[in-house]
């Protein structure tokens, strides 16, 4: 069920005047694309592929 707000917030902006989606993860990772399915896959794979994960 829904609960109080947390800091685990993922955001996708559809950039006005374009067909572009801009994704912003709570870790600060960003990405642009044109396919919401692919965008959520990248987003919710956090931290994998978000640049900050330990190698």
């Amino acid at each position, binding site marked *: 069920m829904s609960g109080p707000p*947390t800091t685990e*917030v993922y955001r996708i902006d559809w950039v006005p005047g374009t067909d572009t*989606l801009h994704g912003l993860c709570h870790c600060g990772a960003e990405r642009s694309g044109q396919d919401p399915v692919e965008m959520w896959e990248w987003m919710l794979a956090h931290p994998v592929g978000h640049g900050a994960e330990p190698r």
Partner: protein
Amino acid sequence: MTAFARNQWYVAAYGREVGRDLLGRTILNEPVAFYRSEETGTVVALADRCVHRRFPLTAGRLDGDRVVCGYHGFTYDTTGTCVYVPGQKRIPRTARVNSYPVVEQDSFVWVWIGDPALADPGAVPRAKHLADPGWTTVGGMEPIDAGYGLLVDNLMDLSHETYLHGGYIGTPEVAETPTTTEVDEGAGIVRVSRHMDDAECPPFYARSTGIEGRITRWQDIEYHAPCLYLLHSRIAPVGVLPGPDGDDSHAFHVEITYAITPSTDGHVYDFWCVSRDFAQDDEEVTTFLHDFNRTVVMQDVDALNLLQKALDTEPEGYQELSINIDTGGLAARRILARLAAEGAGPSVPVPAPAR
């Protein structure tokens, strides 16, 4: 088919629907009988199947706070315990029906179908405007012959207003205006915002607010998965924005509330409410908003009935195609799948996987 998230609160009825007549609703495939206790005034929810021969208890009657089965008279108290059987003194130890946790809040009756040990009344999401005297609310409920996932899809993507509800609540700007989508994963909330700076005023708002020209129209969706959907709608003449101090008294606010309650795999209850903070005592506005919104809701009902019928004839694994307008709906589907999977613990039957 979207799997059910069992360990969640769901709206079963409006409080005003539950009284001294037995009310039957099927929630997450479970038939439930509701009534209001004479003694405490609280709502009782019992499994709507007599333990004797499975006769629906809603076809029986109340005797005080006890339910008497209409077939052979097995009688149950508010906890579902059988307290009387005909013709004999010994009541079998297993003679009881399930009782379900209930919370009555913000004009809704919420029920918990999953593991009762996990039911936290404090976790019922709020829709305070529904019981706030500062708002005037109209509402109703329409059953839809479609899986609940189709209703979630419908509500998360309001671009359909332009096409399905054109001339009612839709104008060209809705489908044309980009959205912002946010998922608060920890809280289980999806937010979709669409702010139209300069839009045509659809009849729904023109006739209720009296605004004649073009408008600034904001739609801010807050979906508390799985059941509660809030649409904060702000309407004002073009260019009228909230003041720097947050004062927004020059705008009209409408809270559009939905409760999306899965009934069976292929049926959903669509509870809808429209609350306004203007013309609160104007009966004409009340009647207009009720009738007009019901027409809009029925446009969705007809469309989803048709869509589900069409999907039922599709071979398994049919393809869909998602574009930018689907960003919010896709986020909601993901959260629902996660909640359903979490509910599929050992004590709960495993729901069929989403496909």
